[in-house]
């Protein structure tokens, strides 16, 4: 169930715009932040807030890269596989992440800390090879830097309780 406070915030936002569905992405992102991902329950709640059918919202949810319809870890690593990062070391970045975390693209670590996803050019070609961690950019990546980033992320947040 959506907490009343979040529901009211979203309802106020929606009331301000000309057409509720204009805020479909914002609503999905808010629900995703609350639930950790856009669960079936969240999708239904979002659709009802926006005056859409769940199927209409699903059509959008599955279209976008940054909407997660499946559970993800506390940190989502979006590794850029654009052509510039590719030529400057995308594969070694993936190999390093596999060494450290034991996951391949599309997978989540057993402790629920990290999910690894490939993504289209993130627009940090001047810092390639690059990745986003929960939207925050890092680059140019080296094995040492990756080590350091992962260590700091683990220190900042303990593993979440698994809900799956």
């Amino acid at each position: 169930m959506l907490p009343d406070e979040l529901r009211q915030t979203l309802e106020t936002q929606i009331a301000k715009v000309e057409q509720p569905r204009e805020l479909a992405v914002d609503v999905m992102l808010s629900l995703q932040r609350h639930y950790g991902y856009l669960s079936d329950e969240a999708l239904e709640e979002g659709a009802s807030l926006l005056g859409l059918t769940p199927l209409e919202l699903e059509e959008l949810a599955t279209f976008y890269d940054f909407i997660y319809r499946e559970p993800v870890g506390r940190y989502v690593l979006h590794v850029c596989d654009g052509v510039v990062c590719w030529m400057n070391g995308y594969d070694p970045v993936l190999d390093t992440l596999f060494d450290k975390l034991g996951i391949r693209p599309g997978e989540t670590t057993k402790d629920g800390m990290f999910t690894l996803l490939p993504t289209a050019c993130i627009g940090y070609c001047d810092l390639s090879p690059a990745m986003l961690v929960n939207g925050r950019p890092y680059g140019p990546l080296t094995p040492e830097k990756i080590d350091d980033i992962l260590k700091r992320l683990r220190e900042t947040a303990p593993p979440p309780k698994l809900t799956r």
Partner: protein
Amino acid sequence: MATPYPQVLFQNRKPNRIATLDEYRQSGGYQALTTVLQKHSPREVQQLVIDANLQGRGGAGFPAGLKWKSVADDAPHPRYIITNIDEMEPGTFKDRLMAHVDPHMIIEGTILAAYAVSSEKGFIFVRPSYENSAIIMEREIAIAREAGFLGKNILESGFSFDLVVHRSGGRYICGEGTAQINALMGKRAQPQQSPPRSTEKGLWDKPTVLNNMETLINVPHIVRNGPEWFKKLAKTKTASGTKLYCVSGRVNHPGCYELPMGTRLGEIIEECGGGLLPGSEFKTCLPGGASTCFLEKKDYDVEMDFDGLKKCRNRLGTGAVIVFDQKTCLVAAVLNLMDFFVRESCGWCTPCREALPFIRDLLWRIENGEGKEEFIPMLRTMSAHTWKSYCAFAPGATMPLSSLLDNFPEEVHEHISQKRCPYGGTPGRME
């Protein structure tokens, strides 16, 4: 890099800090808006921009003033403006830089465009990877509103206009104008063919003008300094203004640099990009992002403007120069690009949805030693099919492939005859 050229768009660029409203105003910011609201009619603003020959910087190069003029005098209200900072063209990062350099230039440019078409509401469309830019723009829009540059009765002129940031969920096709309009309305972001044009029926069937951010930031300067000054900024006769060129790939100093339109490619790569990395030699580049052609070596000194690249059967695109060296396999590079386009295709029309994966499959086989000579005509046929697709996405997607076959055929043949990648596959570098 110290550049010998005047910095217009990047005049307030500072290391690791954005220009504040005060700094922007000290450099002449919002003067153009003040002048326009006092002295010029919307038609006059359109004419200034037409006279300045401001070509759209998103890739197509369509004159911005003419686009604005296509909004009919008696067109209904509300009218909408969309400022596109959804750049997802591989190699392109100028919009992100600009939002971090001088956000008020983007805001003023957008307000001027809004005035020119009598629009009352605007959106800045931002991709999720640029959440920082979205936050900056939201904050600075609030500051501009507080200062009286946005909202009701701007500078007591009677003109009202407001601007909001719209966040995308992240998909390349949203950069295409009509797809972006659908995305903004909360619909699946598929492109829309004209007629009607967006300037006639766009957002919620109302007149909508969509411009690339880089196009709009030129407008305050055109108003303040005049069309003749603007045209003279370019190095070439048919171009005008400056350009934010991005340089990336196998160069020493990847980055975004403001140079006169029509600056030679060699100068951009060597003077700004710092030349190729030690041990690397220039093989080719994509001069304007992923949807352009691999450049032939003989065109290394091409004048980087719309006409210059057209002359060598290429496109300026976004002006994002991606440099490849002699150690990088172009078949593997095109395979990477094709993976990108297959994933990002909206899937709505058949030539794009079906031809691109087919091409990817053939390329994968060639790269992995399973290629045959007969694949080459198949690749050409499939590329030709993409020209029948609904929007410009698929023809753009096949440009790197067609130019690989035209300009670097020996690389493809070598893969096929040696039954392996002569370069050892995907580059294994992380430096």
